């Protein structure tokens, strides 16, 4: 056994390995990405099949196949990825599994780096499958192993829902560093079981609805559904996930108020809850995002005609949106418990005026090729009407001033299809769709087929930096590497586009401004679907070997600053300087400078 201080996502990975996982797959997405990364790094003798699948749906289906053969499978994604995978998961919930199949869907309250604040616990209820909701890193390590056991016990896929504060928190765990994958029994054909037909669905639906209360009863004895308190308490706090951690932080080992921790929101552990609430008159529910536990509790009390006052999100005691905090939860519980509230002034009253710290908004890195691509399109289109549909990735930051080149951004791959919708409303405007290479493979290809088939007019701009940059540089089908450490054939985006029937597919280096502008103008003048692949590596992957310097030809016009907004360039009065530690020598500023006052040097 080995003790190690690890991140929550590493603990989940190590827990899955301790459970003998045979296959781990998923699609990167903050805050879930480190789980698959960790398993790949620690995959001794390549005994586990590890892959970044092309998207979450593909991952879910790969895992379903392996599970039918009896393999233990882990599928990871962020919660919006679950929307993509839901087609497969919903059907799989009806069919069931053979080997344990655990789907980690990491929720991001806040949201800190996501488009929605959706709640995976509701998805579990919708799919009628169990969900585990850990409240700490240590618990996550243990609970993911339990999740495999329950999955096999009830032959159902199960969801596992950590939140950012669990995924990205650190704690010490002790694990078996020699854990080995399970023996895989092998696929036993049984079309009555594995081929989904209406009759099977109807039958299994009935089975599932009968089974779920039994799982709820099983969960009533589950080790991480916790109770602290004493008989005769008339007040209780019911909490789950990070909410439990915040409640425990305030209550510590106090027993005058009961603390009920729910680790299995679905199926609801009714017997455990009812027992914990004996004699209680008022309950405060502490949870993040949707009032899930609150509604389940209200339903349970209503069904059983038990008169207990329930406080939470519906009563305005806690907010419906945004991330919870320890101090906000402390305040909610203190008010509920009738505790004295320590009101510190903020800032100390005698301090007077507190200066506002400067904003530090996220921006494209110095030297990022996306900046050059956006700038080239902006310049080429400066006298024409054009729409710029963006997508999910680092390049969403192309919306910031002074580029201001993202007019829409919805979800993965949507820029390509939305550009078509915009085109059908106004054919005189040139419609651009910007998509990254990883997003292109994940969900861009169907959109392109749609455009070609329906004869839309649009220009696809693939911002190809040969990595999945935003989530921490994972490989994808275009990079020539996979998670088993193998060098594989690169799938050519250019060949895909040509194969789909796009005649004009141009590949340019975005750091060559004139060539890029020329390609864009050429595409804007041609009818139909056109594509430009802007090919240049992510600057965060390599140590720069060059840098730019400003010579005495500089007249201090600051056109470089005004036009491209590179964080390496700054000015004091008329004096413009380039921060040598940040500059990568991309030379975009040199190409913009009207005086030729910026030169490239070897570092």
């Amino acid at each position, binding site marked *: 056994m080995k003790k190690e*201080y690890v991140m929550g996502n590493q603990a989940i990975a190590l827990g899955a390995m301790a459970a003998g996982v045979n296959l781990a797959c998923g699609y990167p997405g903050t805050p879930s990405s480190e789980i698959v990364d960790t398993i790949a790094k620690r995959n001794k003798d390549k005994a586990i099949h590890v892959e970044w699948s092309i998207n979450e749906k593909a991952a879910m289906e790969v895992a379903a196949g392996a599970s039918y053969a009896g393999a233990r499978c882990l599928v990871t994604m962020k919660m919006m990825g679950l929307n993509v995978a839901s087609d497969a998961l919903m059907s799989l919930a009806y069919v069931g599994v053979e080997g344990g199949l655990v789907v980690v869907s990491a929720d991001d309250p806040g949201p*800190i*780096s996501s488009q929605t604040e959706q709640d995976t616990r509701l998805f579990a209820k919708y799919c009628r499958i169990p969900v585990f909701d850990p409240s*700490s*890193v240590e618990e996550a390590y243990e609970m993911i192993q339990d999740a495999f056991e329950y999955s096999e016990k009830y032959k159902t896929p199960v969801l596992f829902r950590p939140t950012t*504060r*669990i995924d*990205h*928190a*650190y*704690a*010490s765990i002790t694990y078996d560093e020699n854990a080995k994958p399970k023996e895989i029994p092998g696929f036993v054909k049984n079309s009555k079981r594995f081929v989904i037909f209406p009759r099977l669905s109807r039958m299994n639906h009935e089975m599932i609805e009968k089974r779920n209360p039994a799982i709820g009863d099983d969960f009533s004895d589950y080790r991480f559904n916790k109770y602290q308190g004493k008989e005769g308490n008339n007040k209780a706090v019911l909490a789950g996930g*990070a909410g439990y*951690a*915040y409640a*425990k*932080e305030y209550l*510590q080992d106090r027993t005058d108020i009961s603390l009920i921790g729910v680790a299995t929101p679905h199926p609801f552990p009714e017997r455990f809850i009812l027992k914990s609430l004996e004699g209680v008159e008022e309950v405060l529910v502490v949870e993040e995002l949707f009032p899930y536990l609150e509604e389940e509790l209200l339903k349970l009390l209503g069904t059983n005609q038990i008169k207990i006052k329930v406080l939470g999100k519906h009563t305005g005691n806690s907010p419906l949106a945004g991330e919870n*905090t*320890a*101090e906000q939860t*402390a305040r909610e519980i203190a008010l509920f418990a009738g505790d004295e509230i*320590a009101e*510190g002034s*903020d*800032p*100390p009253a005698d*301090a*007077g*005026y*507190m*200066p506002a*710290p*400067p*904003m*530090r*908004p*996220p*921006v494209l*890195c110095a030297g990022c090729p996306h900046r050059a691509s956006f700038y080239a399109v902006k310049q080429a289109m400066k006298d024409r009407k054009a729409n710029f549909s963006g997508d999910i990735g*680092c390049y969403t930051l192309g919306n*910031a*001033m*002074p580029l201001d080149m993202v007019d829409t951004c919805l979800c993965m791959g949507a820029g390509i299809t939305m550009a078509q919708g915009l085109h059908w409303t106004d054919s005189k405007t040139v419609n651009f769709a910007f998509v990254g290479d990883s997003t292109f493979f994940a969900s861009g290809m169907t959109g392109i087929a749609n455009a070609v088939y329906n004869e839309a007019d649009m220009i696809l701009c693939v911002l190809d930096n040969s990595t999945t940059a935003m989530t921490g540089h994972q490989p994808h089908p275009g990079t020539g590497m996979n998670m088993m450490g193998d060098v594989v054939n690169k799938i050519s985006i250019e060949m895909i586009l040509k194969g789909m029937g796009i005649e004009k597919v141009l590949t340019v280096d975005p750091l060559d401004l004139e060539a890029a502008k020329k390609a864009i103008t050429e595409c804007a003048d041609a009818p139909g679907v056109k594509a430009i692949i802007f090919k240049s590596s992510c600057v*965060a992957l390599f140590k720069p070997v060059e840098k730019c310097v400003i010579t005495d030809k500089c007249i201090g016009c*600051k056109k470089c*600053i*005004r036009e491209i*907004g590179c*964080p390496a*360039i*700054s*000015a004091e009065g008329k004096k413009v300087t380039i921060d040598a530690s*940040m500059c990568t020598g991309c030379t975009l500023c040199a190409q913009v400078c009207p005086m030729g006052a910026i030169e490239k040097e070897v570092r």
Partner: protein
Amino acid sequence: MSYNILLCGVGGQGTVLASKLLAAAAEKMGETVHSAETIGMAQRGGPVTSHVRIGKDAYSPLIPKKSADLIIAFEPSEAVRNLDFLKEGGAVITNEVCLKPVTESLNPTGYDGKEMIEFLQKTISNLVVLNADTLCEELGSSKFFNVAVLGVAKGAGFLPFSEEALISTIETSVKSNFVEVNKKAFLHGVEVGKK
């Protein structure tokens, strides 16, 4: 023991390594440790905080407001931004060298950090103001500030660990060819902190 340390700065300044060293040193002393990083969407240049929580009664991954015993700020405005985490009577160590926002050239705010330091001096009685450039002069690079500042915290009596625990942590946690210079940075910090 129950002790909360918040480290804050700007992406790329090395706060994460400093927080890992603190966590590892506390573990060496047999303590229970939890920590969490908040990095948001920014790859570089965005605010970064690390929350290190030592003790068995820490459940929240982040330090609750008004509960940090010590704030170590790598940049003066980041100290101010996180000041509401400090508990009454808590200590602050801050670098006075400011890092302007990367958007400063586009939207000049005139920010130079001085106002932040003046405010801290007025508000915090337990304050140590450092200049990363001066502190790291003899170390050859201000990138060693992240380890030197831990030395200052130790020397000033703000860290509940032994010097030995911290030094042996540096020996085991830092890449081998950087061990000596980091030890030197730490010990130099201890001397400065004692003053």
